[in-house]
């Protein structure tokens, strides 16, 4: 119920339209009730009840003309108001769904990473499509039409009771039964629809994962397994879908049944009454036509009820997003950070992802402006977590992170993130051209700046080989970039934003040696003059660093310069001996080999 009220409040923003919708449908309903009445009067003018049954009687043509004209005029007026009503209701429902779409879209791009870690894309997609549509139908059907249905039923009942209350009672006896039945069906349909949506979401997820991971499927020859997995979901979906459609169908069939039965009873009992002289033939005609008019609202009932139950489940899913509180919230009195000098300190910092063991424990790191800090550690030791905390993608559980001595939670998120640039490990391309993709974080950049950034990022030469240079479309329908190119694109993006603080991931994944050299140059270029945190995998990065932090199971195992740590011994020296030194030895080998080659 609360959900329906909230949807109504969304519609209330367009109260003029809403009021207009109610007014026009009131007039339209009133006019439509007039037509059977006029038709009944015409019949009574045409026939009279005598002792020897019913016979025709004389009536002037002008009377007939007036009655026919009245019916026509009423129909015309009704048509006009019907149009006005349909348009206002349609546009109202479209406006509400427009608002919902914008709201959901904006909310999602403000929710923290913790939220997106849990939500599947397929699920969020179905919220934006199916659920918004269900809410739109509710505004159209449930909010306005439901009242029309109720009013029509009440209006017709009132008129029939006035004509002959006994006959009205007999022919309308089914209405309360119908109301109780449909209320029950409404409850059951609601749970069924939630279930259908769930299963649909699961099916879409299986499909999407299969398509995106088709290489894995092919590589392992798991096509049969995948087919089975999908068929199972599809089978469940089919069953659930059918269950709800059957319930809906059964309900609709019963409704039509009672309506038709009432028509039969009117003819039977009403005819008896006409023969006895209790009512006129015209009144019997009115009964028949009014009941016929009930067909529409009764049919609508099924849709209206359906729209209610779907709106409750869909509305809940939408409001779940809208109401989701981001664990990362801006303080009300948050300040703009301006341009930071770049002094970053992690102070006794601890962090745990929701309900999991702490990922970081009591971490202290102090980075001076312009300093390069290399972070080393095994997977899961908390390297990525550290860099996710700095731009506040998550908030620390304990302790604090300070930039230039002030807690980062005192600043606005936008100004903080302007100061902290990230060269992402997972580089994402957006539809559009190369130029827009580079300027993604700095929309107002001049073309010269974009080219300059691309040059520092060692991407310019590649772009110039593309058919349309910087205007070449990238993404699914355009140029594909290799991993190394994407990483350099990410570097170019960051250079353009020109942040004083920088986070880099040097896992130069899947590139050949020459590309790797280009990336290294790009990285050296971008680090200049910025406080940099590097998740380091390579010896060159580690050697360049002013400070080396070694993480182990979420704790700082060691930190210091290369010389200090080597002298001290311990985990860093082990890592160095185990992995970094072999690289140097290989290097010596190569040098020797090439010298040999040179000599011979």
């Amino acid at each position, binding site marked *: 119920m609360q959900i329906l009220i909230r949807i109504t409040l969304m519609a209330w923003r367009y109260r003029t339209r809403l009021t207009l919708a109610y007014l026009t449908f009131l007039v339209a309903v009133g006019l439509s009730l007039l037509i059977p009445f006029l038709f009944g009067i015409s019949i009574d003018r045409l026939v009279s009840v005598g002792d020897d049954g019913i016979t025709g009687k004389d009536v002037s043509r002008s009377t007939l003309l007036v*009655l026919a004209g009245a019916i026509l005029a009423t129909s015309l007026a009704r048509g006009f108001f019907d149009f006005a009503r349909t348009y206002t209701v349609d546009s109202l429902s479209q406006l509400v769904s427009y608002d919902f779409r914008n709201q959901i879209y904006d909310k999602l791009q403000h929710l923290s990473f913790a939220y997106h870690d849990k939500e599947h894309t397929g699920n969020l997609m179905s919220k934006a499509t199916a659920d918004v549509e269900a809410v739109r139908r509710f505004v159209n059907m449930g909010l306005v039409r439901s009242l029309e249905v109720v009013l029509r039923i009440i209006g017709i009942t009132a008129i029939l009771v006035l004509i002959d209350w006994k006959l009205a009672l007999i022919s309308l006896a089914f209405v309360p039964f119908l109301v109780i039945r449909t209320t029950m069906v409404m409850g059951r349909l609601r749970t069924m629809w939630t279930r259908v949506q769930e299963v649909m979401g699961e099916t879409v997820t299986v499909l999407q994962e299969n*398509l995106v991971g088709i290489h894995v499927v092919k*590589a392992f020859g798991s096509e049969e397994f995948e*087919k089975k997995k999908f068929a199972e979901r599809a089978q469940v979906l089919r069953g659930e879908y059918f269950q709800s459609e059957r319930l809906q169908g059964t309900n609709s069939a019963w409704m039509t*049944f009672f309506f038709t039965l009432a028509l039969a009873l009117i003819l039977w009992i009403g005819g008896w009454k006409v*023969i006895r002289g209790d009512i006129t033939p015209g009144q019997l005609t009115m009964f*028949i036509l009014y009941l016929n008019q009930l067909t529409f609202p009764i049919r609508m009932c099924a849709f209206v009820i359906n729209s209610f139950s779907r709106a409750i489940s869909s509305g809940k899913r939408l409001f779940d997003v809208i109401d989701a509180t981001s664990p990362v919230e801006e303080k009300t009195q948050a300040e703009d950070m301006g341009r930071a000098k770049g002094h970053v300190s992690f102070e006794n910092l601890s962090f745990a992802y929701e309900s999991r063991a702490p990922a970081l424990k009591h971490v202290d790191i102090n980075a001076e402006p312009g300093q390069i800090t290399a972070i080393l550690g095994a*997977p899961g030791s908390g390297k990525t977590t550290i860099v996710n905390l700095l731009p506040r993608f998550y908030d620390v559980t304990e302790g604090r992170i300070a930039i230039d001595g002030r807690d980062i939670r005192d600043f606005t998120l936008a100004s903080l993130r302007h100061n902290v640039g990230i060269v992402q490990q997972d580089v994402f391309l957006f539809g559009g051209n190369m130029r827009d993709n580079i300027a993604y974080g700095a929309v107002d950049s001049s073309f010269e700046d974009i080219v300059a950034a691309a040059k520092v990022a060692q991407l310019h030469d590649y772009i110039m080989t593309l058919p349309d240079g910087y205007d070449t479309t990238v993404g699914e329908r355009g140029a594909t970039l290799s991993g190394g190119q994407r990483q350099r694109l990410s570097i170019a993006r960051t250079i353009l934003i020109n942040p004083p603080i920088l986070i880099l991931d040097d896992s130069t994944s899947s590139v050949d040696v020459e590309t790797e050299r280009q990336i290294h140059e790009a990285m050296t270029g971008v680090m200049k003059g910025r406080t940099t945190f590097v998740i380091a995998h390579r010896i060159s990065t580690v050697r360049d660093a002013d400070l080396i932090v070694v993480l182990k199971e979420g704790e700082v195992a060691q930190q210091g310069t290369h010389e200090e740590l080597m002298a001290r011994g311990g985990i860093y020296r082990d890592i160095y001996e185990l992995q970094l030194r072999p690289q140097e030895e290989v290097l010596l080998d190569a040098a020797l080999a090439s010298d040999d080659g040179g000599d011979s």
Partner: protein
Amino acid sequence: MRAAGPGGGFGGMMGGMRGLQAGGINTPNMDNLTDESIVGKAYDHKVVVRLAGYIKPYKRDVLISLAAVLLYTVGNVSIPLLMMLGINWAINAGELWRLHVVGGIFVGVTVMHFLANYVQLVYMPKVGQGILYSLRTAMFNHLQTLSPSFFHRTPVGRIMSRSQSDVLQLQETFELIVQSFSDILSLVGIIAMMLFIDWRLALVSMSIVPVLFFILGYWQKFARHSFMRIRRAIAMVNGEYNQNITGVRVVESLNRQDVNLKHFDSLNREHLDANLEASRFSGGLQPIVEVLIGIGMGFGVVLVGGIMAQGGSLEWGVLVAFALWIQRFFEPVRHLTMQYSQLQRAMAAGVRIFEVLDLKPEVVDAEDAQDMPAIKGHIKYEGVTFHYVPDVDVLKDINLDIKPGENVAIVGSTGAGKTTLVTLLHRFADVSEGRITVDGFDIRDINRQSMVRQMSMVLQEPYLFSGSVSDNIRYSSEDATEEEVIAAGKAVGAHDFIMGLEDGYDTVLAERGVNLSVGQRQLVSFARAIVGNPRLIILDEATANIDTQTELLIQEALKRILVGRTSIVIAHRLSTIRNADKIVVLNQGQVAEVGNHEDLLKTRGVYSRLHAVNYGLSHPEISNMDGGLIPAPASDD
């Protein structure tokens, strides 16, 4: 739908394909699929015939629902007739017994009408859902047969929309056709009844109908235009929405929210406008019908009928029946108009679906393909040439002989054809010339599934499915026991971190496993690769995302695992392949050098040059970025 770019979300897929089309440009038409915005005919015979194939299994149910529709329509049309009979034959005559007869018949018809309606409402969705199920699975199953290059060319969003919304729409076709059948039946029935009862009054009351058809024809044109505009608009809205969710991490870190919202709002606004335009047209239809009913009732039944009744040639029961029929007449007309555009949509959806179903898989098993016996691991490339487009060879005349148990490394720069070389072995595509043999069998002569199940591959970007860690490790061999899963986890050094997760091996992963780090995902994909005890392992730059410490652990593990198995490793870190039995250097699709580490360094060819670049060595042929200095050895030792 123009969904997300090849980064992030679809990284797994694009990454694996890199070698196949390195840095290439895709033109929009490369995916072999026609444009989505095409609207079809209202009746496309080919589509209906194909669809009929899916209806066949439900023949009995279809016949039942058709019979029910027929009975239901008969009931609908005969109700006004019963009214007339009751009034004229019983009430007018004042004969009570006649009234009881008609009343009894009426109740009987009502019950029949109800039963027919019930059967129709239950059987139609039953068939509909059955068709939907068959289409969905047919589509999915067919997609499994297509080669990876198809998925490289075709955006996932487009395939998704074909297998989701298009299938839903095509399923409607069945119900639409049945409903149209029922509506046409009603129309014919009503007209026949009216003409039969009084042809003069029938003609007068229906004289307005041609006007209706004229208006409807005109309306169709606008409806079509409106519908296409809405369709385009909603595709843009959903595409942008999808992209923003997939790329949300970038959006947030680059503060793009305001710009993006503005852009989204403009797309959303266009969608709103398109819908408002449509509702101005569709909202006009109902009032027109009402006015026409008014004309039919007012001038037809009341005026003309009244005059005729006065002349004594008509009884008033006829007037009541006509009033009811006229109202019932417009209902099916309105349905049919709506069904017309729905049918157009459904047919267009059908064309798109069957287009996908008709795509020929590039790699098909030969009819007499035999199952691969247990693989020993002797692989031979004999004069293998491969191209997508004739004359643009990705691989040229490759000859390789890999002995059972040999550990082969492949190196080369981007675009050299490394990934293509190894994926050909998996038959992601078939060779253009020459042949590849495994244990002497040409791989095109054997059942692909039976061979691939004995091999395994680790792609450069680890892709995990949702489900638990253990489900993922078990992916290649579903019947692996828990012990085997744990053993695999231990063998690749993933056991410790997995046990540190909330529920150990039963921990449920988020979409694509994003709650694990890239390195952890890679470890899981390693475990997945070895759990089935494959005879042949291919590693495609698979250690790139793992930190050196973990990589070292994996190297150790792999050394053990690879014993007795044939393995092919693509790696850029030359340190990881020093122990390979054989190193193959690829250059522009050709084998440049083959030999072991020491041999190749001595030859001072491509390998030695690559080697030098990798370690920032001074080398006569290249300028060095680090200034050409060999780093000083560590201070101690």
